[in-house]
């Protein structure tokens, strides 16, 4: 019973530690908070129900793999849904990677009272998040896992279920896109 309680507490602590980061990752991938929450919950449920008996060291890569799988599933459903819509409407672009409204676009601007450096820093942060959000899905996943979660190429390939070469390609393309999109900030110090 005691071991069972310890396992329960341990996986709970793991989920507490990771849930916010998972949500941010899912939100960047989907640009939708409700969808992101659903994805995170589904990933948690799967981890707990299928892998809670695994060693706790295996939980991080397992959880991220599950999370990315659910993101991929969401993405496929969106593509199918948008394809149906595009047959009846000209409003949705069907150019491969759908661009949805970013939550950043509707943010209120309260920057007028802040120092210029802080304003520029906030602008860069927003631009960076926006630029990552509009990346193609695989580039987005590779960038978030490599740059933010600091996963190795090997770990990232296992999470994304692709070769290490593919990870390097996706990551390199992501960096190129981001550098181009954030060029206006290139001479500023942050």
């Amino acid at each position: 019973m005691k071991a069972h309680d310890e396992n329960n507490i341990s996986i709970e602590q793991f989920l507490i530690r990771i849930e916010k980061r998972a949500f941010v990752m899912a939100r960047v991938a989907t640009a939708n908070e409700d969808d992101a929450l659903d994805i995170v919950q589904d990933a948690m449920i799967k981890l707990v129900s299928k892998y809670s008996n695994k060693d706790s060291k295996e939980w991080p890569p397992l959880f991220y793999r599950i999370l990315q799988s659910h993101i991929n599933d969401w993405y496929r459903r969106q593509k199918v849904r948008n394809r149906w819509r595009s047959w009846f409407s000209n409003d949705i672009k069907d150019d491969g990677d759908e661009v949805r409204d970013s939550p950043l676009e509707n943010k209120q601007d309260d920057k007028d009272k802040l120092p210029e450096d802080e304003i520029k820093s906030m602008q860069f942060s927003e631009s960076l998040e926006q630029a990552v959000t509009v990346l193609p899905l695989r580039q987005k996943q590779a960038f978030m896992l490599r740059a933010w979660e600091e996963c190795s190429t090997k770990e990232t390939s296992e999470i994304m279920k692709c070769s290490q070469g593919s990870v390097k390609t996706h990551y390199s393309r992501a960096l190129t896109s981001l550098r181009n999109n954030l060029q206006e900030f290139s001479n500023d110090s942050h």
Partner: protein
Amino acid sequence: MTHINEGDLKLKAKQVFDQKADSLDLKTQKRLEMARETALSQRSKKTSVFDAVNIKWMTGAGAGLALVSLLTFMLIPGLMSSNGRQVDQSNIAFLEDIEILSHESELELYTQLDFYEWLDESLNEAEL
């Protein structure tokens, strides 16, 4: 034309997304907490159903064994015949009957186990 170098980009990305994760609004934090509790409840729910089925299996197996034993003791007097041939044929028929009756009993127990499992899930949901 200068570009942000990879190291600076990675560092800034880490800062930006760390800050995003640390500054989620209360509503989102609450929803994440609820999602976590839902996930954790799946594990205890799975465990209790497993335990219930386990107990029911043992109970069912015990009941099956008791039934077979009862049938054996009920049918044994029928075997006590002065005619050896009759006993042999009766033995075969007896064993076949036991096998058939046992199987029917097991089938019935399986059905009951499904019912007990459903009942346990219903009770758990009612408790939640």
